[in-house]
């Protein structure tokens, strides 16, 4: 059952940050899609709830050919899914959003809330890391931007401290020969992933691999980059054998935890399969780009 709390509704970002700094036992709520679940379970029982859903300054999607994509923290999953410019420039994000929960949840849930929640099974984390995104967060005493890759610290823990709000996600403009793909494994398509893999590939003009990223979802306490697999690919002419080898590495490097939905062995196996497939898909996109 949800405890009684004081409800704070700031009208601006400034007010939000000031309120957040003022109250110690205070939790931020945006879409509430993750927070309300843990509150109902009694795992979180704050005295104050700071509702930032109405802070319009944080709700935007901006794209510029040079600067890339900027998404404000309170932008909903559904807005990202339905954005024309994202569909054109970063189709992998739309594909990811389309399978993130139900439409009802996507209408409420926000990108900032998702990343702040830091569930290792979350979908946006791995994809955005594969896209080389960075995240801006800040409090009344200042802002900070870090690569998203460094933002996650542990299960449900980030670099943010009390008083910090996620402000923006920034994705660099895609390079000319770039591809990125993501897939989660689950029993029902819109469920949380049992495991997931994102991969991106950037090719040189001669077709060799300039850069590659492999990021696993729900394979450890945070979205897990498999640099060993990335290093294997860089500088090489990519082929199926390399993708399979990278998959094998991902499967070994992963730290998945067994539960009723799948054994550790099965998780490792599927992570290998997904890594292989996503690399191939990203590679084919990069070739076509």
């Amino acid at each position, binding site marked *: 059952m949800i405890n009684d709390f004081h409800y704070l509704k700031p009208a601006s970002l400034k007010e939000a940050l000031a309120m957040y700094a003022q109250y110690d036992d205070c939790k931020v709520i945006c879409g509430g899609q993750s927070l309300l679940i843990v509150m109902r379970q009694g795992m979180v029982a704050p005295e104050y709830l700071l509702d930032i859903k109405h802070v319009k300054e944080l709700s935007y999607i901006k794209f510029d050919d040079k600067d890339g994509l900027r998404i404000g923290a309170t932008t909903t999953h559904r807005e990202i899914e339905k954005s024309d410019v994202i569909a054109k420039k970063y189709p992998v994000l739309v594909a990811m959003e389309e399978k993130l929960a139900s439409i009802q949840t996507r209408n409420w849930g926000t990108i900032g809330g998702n990343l702040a929640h830091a569930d290792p099974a979350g979908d946006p984390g791995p994809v955005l890391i594969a896209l080389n995104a960075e995240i801006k967060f800040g409090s009344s005493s200042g802002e900070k931007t870090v690569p998203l890759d460094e933002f996650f610290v542990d299960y449900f823990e980030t670099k943010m401290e009390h008083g910090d709000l996620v402000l923006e996600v920034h994705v660099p403009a895609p390079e000319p020969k770039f591809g990125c793909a993501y897939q989660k*494994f689950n029993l*029902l398509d819109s469920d949380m992933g049992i495991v997931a893999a994102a991969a991106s590939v950037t090719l040189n003009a001669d077709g060799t691999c300039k850069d590659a990223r492999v990021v696993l979802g729900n394979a450890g306490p945070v979205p897990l980059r498999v640099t060993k697999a990335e290093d294997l690919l860089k500088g090489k002419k990519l082929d199926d054998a390399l993708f399979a080898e990278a998959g094998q590495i991902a499967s070994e490097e992963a730290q998945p935890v067994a539960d009723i939905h799948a054994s550790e062995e*099965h998780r490792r196996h*599927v992570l290998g399969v997904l890594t292989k497939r996503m690399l191939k898909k990203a590679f084919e996109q990069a070739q076509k780009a």
Partner: protein
Amino acid sequence: MSHAKYSVINTHVHNIDGVAKVTGRATYTFDVKLPGMLYGKILRSPHPHAKIINIDTTRAMELPGVKIVVTGKDTLGIKQGIWRRYEELCDEQVLPLEKVRYIGEPVAAVAAVTEEIAEAALDLIDVEWEVLPAVYEPLEAIKKEAPTIHEGVERNVNVTRHIEWGDVDEAFEDADYIREDWFKCSGQAHMCMETRAAVSSFTPEGKLTVWASTQSAYYTQGLLAGVLGLREGDVRVLAPYVGGGFGGKFELDAAMFCSAVMSMKLFKPVKVVFSREEDFIASKRRTPMFYYVRTGIKKDGTFCARESRMFSNGGAYTGMGATALYLSGFFHSFPYKWRGYRYDGYRVYTNTLPSTSMRGFGAPQAMFCSEQQIDWICADLGLDPFEVRRKNGHTEGYEVPGQAFIASCGLEQCINEIEKWVKSKGKLPANRGIGISSCGFMSGGIFNWFDSPYSFSSAVVTINVDGTVELHVGCQDIGQGSNTTMAIIAAETLGVKVEDIRVHSGDTAHCPADLGAWGSRQTLMAGNAVKMACEDAKKQLLEFAYAEMGINIVYDLDIKDRWVHIVARPERGLPYGDLVKKALRAKDGQRIMGRGYYTPHRKGMISPAYSYMMQAVDAEVDPETGKIKIHEVMTAHDCGQPINQLGLVGQLEGAASMALGYAYLEDMPFEDGKMMNPNLVDYKVIKAPEMPEAGIIEIDTYEPEGPYGAKEAGEGLTNPTAAALGNAIYNAMGIQMKELPITPERVLKALREKKEAQK
């Protein structure tokens, strides 16, 4: 006969309570709020098996807002069960006095002024336990050295069931080929949208009123009266709207019992609503079953004999398990003719959530084993699975020896239609296959173990002066649309429109007794009662019309579409409304009332009629991850004359989603007696976006025992699906899935084993 022109039957009729439901006006038990009402919560056992040494409620009683805390000692301590005519099967005290037998079993209940206070008070109840060794699997529990779960029950065997006909051993000797397999079928949660809920109000006059989420107001009334020491007539049960039942809501549950016990002590209304978690861990579930199946067949595909042994996980109590044990064994023979058939079922107590009836009543498990094994035998012998099913299938006039008489049967047409459909699909891409499965189901059980030997239904119909009709039925609408089906039958019979009928159901004070909604009994049994009641009332109207119209006796009169007319000269007649007004005007206050009832007599052991079907499932397997994708489900279905066209489609789709869930998603894993996924994140049910197309081909038959030729439609449709999916995977990948649910990991394991075997 079956081609008679109907005005209402099998036309496009919307659910008569649809508007109330979609506009949020329907009052479910969950919505009931009475003045001064208290909120109850239940303390549940954390142990799978433990003696209750002492329960100290002092601290809980001291919490401000708490009005009462009750334990087993505050009750009459009556052991109850739905098989009331068999004392040894009444084994469950809803608040046990001596020991608990599964995690989640109620131990005490609190009523307080708010739900929050009641919940907080649970933590203040101090229970002293003596933890006992526990056992969770039937094949363990049946061993000599296993702990005793119910005193005096040897080897924890709760019930056994033997079914046999023909000379089984001799028939096996005639077989050219014998195959045997072991199968493991899982449990399944009923997952009703409305969790178990009840509001009880006991007043100083000694009368108890209970709003309950029940499949049978009649059973709830009888069971409550029994455990509370009241007369049945002093207990009124109301169930105006019920948010799903699926076989899980016709026993006494802790919401009903605890709210009633506390209300009787306080003379105040008490409401108890299960949380979703409580509904998962402490209601009851589909029966998990281990099946051994041995089948003998001739080279030409003629079935000779079958012998099966089944061990079911009964959990802690009997529930409806004894019936599931019998029906599983009976339908395991379906829909085929066996010269010799033998089934031995053992229901074994364990320290887990009790199992009971659930949509299909043991048949989905039985068919998962039977229909897959038949396909494997066909592959072993190079036979055509359609042809073999046609060759051995039930036909009209067949008698299942000593068990059942088949008066109508459209199985062969079902097989033909599905064969056509499958062939029309042509060659499928790699890793994709279509599997088939056929079966049948009862149209209402003829058994009753509650308080009379009969499985009866009844109805009363009253014609108002303006021609509108009050139809009182004991059958229970639980979302399956029975009120609409009854309104259709009434409107057709009386010759009026559906909107002329007001259906009254779910109220023991005003509706005639009826066993309620289980075992697919309502369309046939309650439908017959409604038809008879309406014919009775109509006859009274027509008697008056004969007098009024002064026509020759050789002419028959009838009413159709509110027009009373001479059958041979339909243009000659008068409006129904005028007739009713005239007929009632001269009366001294007597009403035009019709009474109807139905009880099957001399209809075998199981049911007066059987539905038949064949289903095909089109599915694809990812050979690297094991993930299953369902493309389509198609069912050819013989339910006699369809009555409620839209209801039938709804039943088909609902059954497909539930049965597919059973086949590849839904599971209730237990660790040390604790259910590991009692929430809707971890318990997987198909959601709307994942629901595949589910089509239906209706086969036209006429069932002489059914109202207007109708049979069951809805429950039986859950029977074929798991097997059809298994067969689809077999056809796609060449692997045999012997365990439910068919998970990706099990698929990959089977693929690995297949590879190794090929080496």
